[in-house]
């Protein structure tokens, strides 16, 4: 008897018990869909973060308060009890590193905007006059803030694309007045749309001098200090020099990461996270497999007489075995295919809120795994069926 024949028999048996087959498949469908969806989210987020870190510009070094690096005194929850940087620390770095390297103290925070009767909440990203050079950005109109505006805490603001579209539809915002947390600011520029980001919509942002942003938020702290090396080759030596400058003031309570290191850390964390998500989803796939095994065992004992009849007319061990294995594999593979479709569809729907990416390897993995589950959990019941003694099977009531 050939494989095609076994498949026909298996399909007929599954078709005879439609509801049961569908419910059994549901276990695998949920498992596979979960794997596809969670891996898609993990991969999507990872790509997004990689993209936004790389999109910041090149040759960047980030300095954080708190010890996030390994070594003596490390491992503590940095940032909570640690002394934060101030603008003076950034100025010190700029003086000591030299003017060829651009240093930007950065702070971020929420605020609310109002123009006429339109209001919206958004995020501010504030730096000094070097921010434009360090982080890039395409001006569609107007300009960035200048050094004089930073030192004077001037109430000037640059709008992201979303903010501009919401507050100044169809008008040129440059030179217009805008209320920021109730204070009157002047729009000096607006930038092109950049697309979504994990840290929120990058276009739903405004930019202003750090000095005025600190006042709005009510702090003298700086979130991080970014340094752009003049040359890619300088990055390593620059990291060393930054440490030398900061060590007398902060001891070990600060961390210096290059862009690549930051990327590596994020990728490592997110890779682990993706793996964990896939693992959790994999458990549900395993549960689905046990469901298949359970149903196949029930099916074997229900069909003992059928097995006896088949053996009486000449079915060999192999024929019975393959019939039941194929039944189990058909259940799991059909469940796998439906699960992949649902997972991919779900991922597409979710992109509205979370970046997702359905990768070929995740699909291949889920498919292989579901087929494997069918074989693994189908073999034992099939083996049991194939070993039945023909006369005992025939006598079975």
């Amino acid at each position, binding site marked *: *008897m050939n494989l095609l024949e076994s498949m026909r028999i298996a399909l007929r048996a599954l078709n005879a018990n439609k509801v049961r087959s569908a419910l059994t498949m549901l276990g695998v469908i949920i498992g596979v869909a979960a794997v596809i969806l969670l891996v898609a989210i993990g991969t999507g987020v990872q790509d997004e973060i990689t993209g936004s870190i790389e999109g910041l510009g090149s040759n960047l070094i980030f300095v954080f308060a708190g010890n996030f690096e390994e070594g003596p005194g490390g491992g503590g929850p940095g940032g909570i009890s640690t002394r934060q940087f101030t603008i003076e620390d950034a100025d010190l770095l700029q003086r000591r590193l030299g003017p060829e390297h651009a240093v930007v103290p950065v702070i971020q925070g929420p605020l609310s905007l109002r123009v006429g009767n339109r209001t919206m909440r958004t995020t501010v990203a504030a730096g000094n006059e070097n921010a434009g050079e360090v982080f890039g950005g395409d001006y569609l109109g107007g300009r960035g803030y200048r050094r004089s505006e930073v030192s004077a805490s001037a109430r000037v603001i640059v709008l992201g694309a979303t903010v501009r579209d919401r507050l100044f539809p169809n008008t040129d915002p440059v030179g217009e007045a805008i209320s920021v947390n109730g204070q009157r600011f002047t729009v000096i520029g607006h930038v092109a749309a950049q697309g979504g980001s994990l840290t929120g919509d990058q276009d739903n942002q405004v930019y202003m001098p750090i000095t005025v942003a600190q006042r709005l938020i009510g702090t003298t702290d700086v979130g991080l200090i970014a340094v752009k090396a003049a040359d890619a080759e300088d990055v390593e030596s620059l990291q060393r020099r930054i440490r030398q400058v900061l060590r007398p003031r902060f001891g070990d309570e600060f961390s210096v990461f290059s862009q690549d290191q930051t990327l590596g850390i994020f990728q490592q964390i997110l890779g682990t996270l993706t793996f964990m998500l896939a693992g959790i989803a994999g458990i549900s796939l395993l549960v689905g497999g046990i469901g298949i095994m359970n149903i196949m065992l029930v099916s074997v004992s229900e069909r003992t007489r059928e097995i*006896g*009849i*088949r053996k009486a*007319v*000449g079915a*060999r061990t192999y024929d019975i075995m393959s019939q039941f294995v194929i039944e189990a594999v058909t259940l799991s593979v059909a469940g796998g295919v439906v699960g992949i479709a649902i997972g991919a569809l779900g991922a597409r729907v979710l992109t509205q809120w979370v970046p997702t990416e359905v990768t070929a390897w995740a699909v291949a993995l889920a498919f292989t795994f579901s087929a494997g589950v069918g074989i693994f959990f189908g073999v034992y019941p099939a083996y049991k069926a194939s070993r039945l003694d*023909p*006369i005992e099977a025939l006598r079975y009531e």
Partner: protein
Amino acid sequence: MEDLVRAGATNEPCDDARVVLEARGVSKTYHLGEVDVHALRGVDLSICDGRMLSLMGPSGSGKSTLMHIIGLLDRPSEGSVIVEGEEVSRMAPNELAAVRNRRIGFVFQSFNLLARTSALANVELPLVYAGVSGNERSRRAREALERVGLGDRMGHLPNQLSGGQQQRVAIARALVTEPSIVLADEPTGNLDSVSGVDVMTILQELNAHGITVVLVTHDDTVARHAERIVRLRDGMVVSDEAVADRIRASERRDAVVEEAGGEG
């Protein structure tokens, strides 16, 4: 007496026909907890090619057990079974399956058709395992169904057929592989008298075409459709004799129909 019978069994003259199936000293013991049930005790039986034989005996005498053993569905506790000169007792399960498939057809009292499976597909089943596929398989299955008078019921499911029709499907399934021997265990046991006569007619027809038929029954009338009757009691052969006035099922039909109609 027992020695005599046994000698008679093994030496039963096949004339020029060869022995197609043979049981030598077959015993079967079932162990039920503390108790041993001796279903068969040293049965010798030889079945001649192309003949029709009845295995008779009261309920519990071991008829079915013997049929299962010579049909290779079960193994004897002692003794050997020889099919067309080949000793099969020590064959592996898959080899036995192949012999059953090629040489033996079964008809059971309870039909044993696959439920939710058409008459045609049921008859095709032995051919599936014989590796016959496609057009040839369905052609042969159709022919077998036509032979038992069910040419117009091929697509019917077992539960859409009467008992007599189901048993005829089972006979078609038994003969579709052109076996040398058909074993029928109480084939008329679950049937009304008219259907029973029809089934016996078909079995006699098969036999007339050269297929060896072994009929297991506790009914004397049914047994006398064969040429020879072997009687079992308590797991032993107690007699083996030719049937003097063999019944022709085809000739009885009218009488049985009338009787059934009169009763109804």
